[in-house]
């Protein structure tokens, strides 16, 4: 009788432990104000790219994305429009894919970038280090870096996959350009899980 009680206690403790672990994994890796972790990879133009590549830009919008995910694809036109709108304001959107998945690697990315006419760098990080460093969890997952390359916003690009009303990233970038802190600095990202 005592043994079965101990067994039940251990089982419950293990369950509680794993539940806590799962919750811990839902917390963002970075905090607002953190220095931006390193980021790098090979662009669809076969150039090696790091954060330093964009040192002359005031604001960087890092978008973890990929080719296959319907959510990421729903945002491609919005990324293109955003870059058009903000290019002459010293803002650069940088798209990066870290997925270990056929179709999401550099050859597929080159094809997609050409098909859609991406007007921003699209980088593949085969090591996936960039994704781990930022705590990217899904595609798309956005991080806005200010002029000091500190994390000023993280989460989703806007509030809805189909009919957006609140452009979170644009609002955050506007605030930073005006010398302020974004009113909404963290939102919940949503998309397809990153393929580690």
């Amino acid at each position, binding site marked *: 009788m005592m043994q079965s009680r101990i067994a039940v206690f251990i089982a419950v403790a293990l*369950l509680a432990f*794993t*539940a806590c*672990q*799962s919750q811990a*994994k*839902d917390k963002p890796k970075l905090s607002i104000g953190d220095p931006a972790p390193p980021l790098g990879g090979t662009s669809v133009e076969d150039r090696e790219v790091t954060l330093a590549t964009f040192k002359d830009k005031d604001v960087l919008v890092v978008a973890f994305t990929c080719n*296959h*995910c*319907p*959510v990421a694809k729903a945002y491609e036109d919005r990324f293109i429009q955003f870059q058009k709108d903000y290019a002459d304001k010293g803002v650069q959107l940088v798209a990066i894919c870290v997925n270990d998945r056929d*179709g999401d690697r550099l050859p597929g990315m080159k094809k997609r970038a050409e098909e859609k006419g991406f007007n921003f760098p699209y980088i593949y990080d085969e090591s996936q280090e960039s994704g781990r460093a930022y705590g990217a*969890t*899904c595609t798309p*997952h956005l991080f806005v870096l200010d002029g000091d390359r500190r994390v000023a916003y993280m989460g*989703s690009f*806007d*509030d*809805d*996959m*189909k*009919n*957006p*009303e*609140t452009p*979170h990233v644009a609002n955050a970038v506007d605030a930073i350009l005006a010398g302020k802190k974004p009113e909404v600095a963290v*939102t*919940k*990202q*949503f*998309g*397809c*899980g990153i393929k*580690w």
Partner: protein
Amino acid sequence: MKPSHLSWRTAGLLALAALVGAPGCEFTAIDGGAGLRQGVSPGEIELALAGAEELAAEIDRRRGQVVLVDFWATWCNPCKGKMPHTVALAEEFEGRGFAVITVSLDSPDESHGVKEFLAEVGAKGDNITHFVSKYKTGEAVTAFEIGDSIPYYKVYDREGVIAPFPIPDDRKFSNQVIRSLVTNALGPNPPP
């Protein structure tokens, strides 16, 4: 001329094969695909608008049963690939006090497409309830507390307590794991 039973099943299986074989789908095999109900029309699928409160109320209403909540969307191929398994579980364990609630993250104006798919996989039964999220996608993940992506599943025991999924995350929602959480919550099969 009435189609034969065999040709309906074949048509159903071919439709499923087309769905799961669509480009970009991660799941190429459906396990637990037995027992698909045939001949369900989209008009027979009842779909209600729901937020976190409505979902919690429905789970509460089914206190005493084990409840599996399946979060999905018509644009999520892996989710669609796994729906037949969810439906199969609903049929298999109906008699032991088990219920399934599906929550689609499609926008409500896509309800027709939602019903169409649910009909295709025969997702109709007394122990199956269908919801479509009333939220924008950004709000939905937070309101429903489903991390940041779908497919996502929650299993509630007969006391309404959520059963945690074991890690690692990659295999978190495999059909085998979902099945084992459900059967654990159901408890031993009562003797005949």
